[in-house]
């Protein structure tokens, strides 16, 4: 991110707000895409042992459950990481 080359002096307040919103949106989209990619890869690995001619219902159930657990794990890891950051900050 080339922060110092932004011609922000020429931006009106509204343009600036729009820009900030766009940035946040793009980050959110990228985050969702990353999650989607990872989840697909992980759940395919976990649930499809031998790819058959179609996704059978047990595979579909497994994928659905795997998705939910992956997001649970994501949230748990997020909490664990921010707790650790907090602890490290307090030690300084």
């Amino acid at each position: 991110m080339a922060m110092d080359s932004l011609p922000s002096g020429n931006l009106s307040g509204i343009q600036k707000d729009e820009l900030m919103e766009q940035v946040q949106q793009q980050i959110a989209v990228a985050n969702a895409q990353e999650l989607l990619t990872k989840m697909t890869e992980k759940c395919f690995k976990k649930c499809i042992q031998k790819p058959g001619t179609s996704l059978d219902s047990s595979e579909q159930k497994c994928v659905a459950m795997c998705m939910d657990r992956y997001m649970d794990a994501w949230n748990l890891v997020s909490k664990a990481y921010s707790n650790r950051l907090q602890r490290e900050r307090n030690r300084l």
Partner: protein
Amino acid sequence: MADLFSNTSTFDDSRKPKSGEAELQEFLMVEKQKAQFNAQIHEFNDFCWDKCMDKPGSKLDSRTETCLNNCVDRFIDVSLLITNRFAQLLQKSAGGM
């Protein structure tokens, strides 16, 4: 997944009235930090999932939860240990010159 995209709690998000330039700079810094934080979680979750997850069940069992928590903390421990030891090695080799 309500708290998935709003890890704002960890970061100081208070917006004081400032000049446009400074406000934008600070906004980008905070967003960058948040993005780095998120990227780190994606990475942790990636390999801790492989280490801790058996067959995905109807909920995360407590054994898996403990494993995930330990996985994050131990990874950071290893990262700190290696960083410190590497710094010592560098110092030693620099001192020997």
